[in-house]
């Protein structure tokens, strides 16, 4: 009965959504998949890096001092045009991690699974860990020229920590160190924003030269911010992982 009601409701809401999106006879319509003209969207200027009036074509490896130096346009949006959202998103993770810490508080010890980690895993992890960490760092430092970025980079680092937790019953992150990294990185993000006010005029405004599009050393504050984000995300997720893989000590 419950199932039937649920299915009916879901069907009803599904029909309403589908008919509104795809079977509407209104003049103004939802643009169907792929059928988009970017000239009608603000994103056009993100691609051309022309928010502040640039009319030049942006060429990989050639254009210099564009308003956002990132070859990765998503990164341009994430760390330049909509960096404020990103600060917010960093805050979400920050406060969630804090909440997890508050909920699973108390003096804690490692929670061990029934069986000790397999020898093969334990030894394998000690090799894979290095690759993961380096790759994580690579990702957040190259966020402006590759598909990476602070969040995936940080997530990879946290994943490497998770691997250590799973492969070693003794392992624990030094929470105080994680907190310190997290806090410093977060504060520095805000400070980068404030430096924007002081050095360029607006909060989070880029105040470094943006260099040549496509080069490793380019894009102004982007690599710095992404590094901070990477460290912050990595340390936050690590402490979340610690929260779940440890248990309260009796008494």
């Amino acid at each position, binding site marked *: 009965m419950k199932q039937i009601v649920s299915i009916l409701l879901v069907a009803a809401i599904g029909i309403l959504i589908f008919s509104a999106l795809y079977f509407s006879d209104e003049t103004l319509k939802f643009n169907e998949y792929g059928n988009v003209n970017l000239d009608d969207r603000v994103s056009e200027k993100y691609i051309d890096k022309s928010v502040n009036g640039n009319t030049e074509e942006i060429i990989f490896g050639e254009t210099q001092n564009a308003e956002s130096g990132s070859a990765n346009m998503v990164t341009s949006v994430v760390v330049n045009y909509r960096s404020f959202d990103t600060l917010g998103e960093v805050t979400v993770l920050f406060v969630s991690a804090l909440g997890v810490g508050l909920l699973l508080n108390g003096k804690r010890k490692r929670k061990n699974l029934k069986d000790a980690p397999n020898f093969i895993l334990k030894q394998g992890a000690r090799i894979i860990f290095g*690759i993961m960490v380096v790759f994580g760092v690579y990702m957040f430092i190259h966020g402006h020229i590759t598909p990476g970025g602070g969040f995936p980079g940080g997530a990879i680092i946290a994943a490497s920590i998770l691997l250590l937790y799973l492969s070693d019953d003794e392992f624990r992150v030094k929470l105080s160190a994680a907190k310190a990294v997290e806090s410093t990185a977060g504060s520095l993000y805000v400070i980068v924003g404030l430096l924007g006010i002081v050095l360029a005029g607006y909060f989070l405004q880029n105040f470094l030269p943006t260099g040549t599009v496509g080069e490793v050393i380019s894009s102004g504050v982007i690599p710095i911010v992404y590094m901070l984000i990477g460290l912050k995300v990595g340390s936050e997720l690590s402490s979340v992982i610690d929260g779940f893989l440890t248990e309260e000590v009796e008494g």
Partner: protein
Amino acid sequence: MIIAGNILMVIGGVFLLLGGFGVLRMPDVFNRIQAGTKATTLGAFSLILGVGFVHPQWLLKLILIIVFIAITNPVGSSVLARAAYKKGAYQYKKEGEERSEVK
């Protein structure tokens, strides 16, 4: 070079297919792992190397991926297989065969 690459890629594709098929066909968890791991590892090696023949400038990164797979794939399989073993997963036995199991 490119032809060699293409051949390697096709071979890789065949082994990946075989890996999938082995996982589907084998009768118990352990044999499935065996089939999956070996075939896919070789398949991936071959395919990635083939790509490296076509794009030599990517070679370093491709080697890293190969190394990574070479390490992780057997490790993953072992972890999974041991877990299955410890939890007493079903083991296929050839009809009529009796053998003392290691404890």
